[in-house]
């Protein structure tokens, strides 16, 4: 991989370009939505991997400081990557993505009062 192609790919995608063209094309593609926006995914993707590869930099906001969070530990431990899928909260880093999935941010805001379950 020469540096120029790395630079170009970096602007568009974080997916590793497969060296085996047959296997790369063998991996099917599909899409799901994140907060209503379409996200491209490949067979076998977890929701988190697909979001990360698409350049999504904020899965949710933290409850107290309201700062953006995304995948951190990638093994279902830290709970930073949680999303709501068809109404159910799960860790996106180890939940498989599926065609047509309706994925939403799961964000709690805590201000002077307490507001729960605001989505953005």
């Amino acid at each position, binding site marked *: 991989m020469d540096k120029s192609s790395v*630079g170009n790919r970096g602007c568009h995608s974080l997916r590793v370009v497969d060296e085996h063209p047959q296997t790369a094309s063998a991996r099917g593609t599909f899409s799901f939505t994140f907060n209503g926006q379409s996200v491209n995914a490949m067979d076998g993707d977890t929701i988190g991997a697909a979001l990360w590869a698409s350049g999504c930099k*904020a899965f949710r906001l*933290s409850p107290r400081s309201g*700062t953006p*969070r*995304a995948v951190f530990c990638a*093994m279902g431990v830290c*709970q930073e990557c949680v999303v709501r899928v068809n109404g159910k909260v799960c860790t996106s880093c*180890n939940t498989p993505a599926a065609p047509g999935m309706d994925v939403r941010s799961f964000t709690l805001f805590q201000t002077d009062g307490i507001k729960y379950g605001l989505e953005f």
Partner: protein
Amino acid sequence: MASSFDVAILGAGPAGAEAAGVAAQLGLSTVVIDEASAAGGQVYRAPAARVPEGDAHHAEGDALRAKLAQSAAVFRAGERVWNIARTSDGVGALYDVATIGARGLETAQARSLIVATGATERFYPRPGWTLPGVIGLAAATILLKSSKVLPGSRVVVAGAGPLLSLVAHLIIEAGGQVAALVDVSPLHEWIRLSPRMAARPDLLARGMAWQFEIARHRVPVYRGYDVTRVLGANSVEAVEIARLDKEGRHRPLMLEADALCLGYGLTPATEVYRLLGARHAYIPERGGWIPELDDAQRTSVPFLYGAGDGAGLLGAAAAPLTGTAAALTAAADLGALEDHRYREKANELRGRLAKASRFGTAMASIARPRPALVKHIDDSTIVCRCEDITAGEIRRAVNEGAENINALKFATRCGMGPCGGRVCGEAAASLMQCHGIDRTRIGQFTARPPLRPISLGDVTRNFEYSDIPLPEPAPA
């Protein structure tokens, strides 16, 4: 669905999968439970998409998965353990393992329990470390090996331990760019380990090959340096590093990057042992707090056994051996293996385990806890990511009298969030240690169910109010 077994094994990584095969072969009814959809644990995590001709990275994992499939052990994949209840009649024990998975609530009962839940990554917070784009070193290996996704287009790889070189190698192999490799260990720390590393010439050679590859790609390597800050508006834009030394930092260096892979070694996941009341000891060379084990993998709780890195870091090569040892001991304790046969097999294992552990213990040493790394972090640094608790709030609580980690938890909420203290526990304890409190006194967070977040709907499921038996009201 409840079922009854002789042995239940938590975790289908290298230790758990091997324990399952051995237990089943000895005639014990065995169930092995893992939250992942395939066996292999974290170190041999199955790839997302199949590569037809097989991938060198996945050969060992594939062999493990095939061997488990061929054994008589029942493998319950995709099930998260959220509670374990133990009852005992004084002679034997009964473990009631509650799980949640695609089929909803399940339970499994067993007369003995082998815990093989592995280790998690150790993190020391820095200002800005919660920015999207910062992931763990193990996280990077998972993204790259399992999902074939790069952490970023220009990645800083920083922290401590053998995962640094692996992550840099995987990024280079994937055609990505490593902005810098930043290792808190100076070179002489690695050199001191080389005699033990020579116990595995194949792994040592592989590590050396990675160093050459890193040099060949002109990746700047900073040894004896650490990350001081991560900068960016809404995601990583730059990483500041500085040299570590006793007098004070040298002038910091700014590295442009859109991702930071950061981790400082592995630490055993002890929540199940804690939940069941096993005694623990703080052994930094084994990764920190570990359950006390006898030389046959028994914990201080009868019929509860430990195996793999979760019982003390010994490395991936030693894991199947401790798994085997735990299964043999469980079989012997349950009366399914005669004493002389047990001794024969156990003695044979002992020598192999000592040899297999040499490399792993060297890695555990360089990836040991380094509490001093949080000493100078700014008060505004978030330590508990779940609840956004800062270093300043923790220091204030300690100054006001919090003497152990549970007192700290009550005072600040640190450790009360969804991760259950798994991410912040080490950093919080290190801050307390920097205040002069001994680690044994600091202790560990009390483990309570649920072990993993579980929804109320999962637990209660569907019921009719008419199902609830109501007593007759008292007469007026």
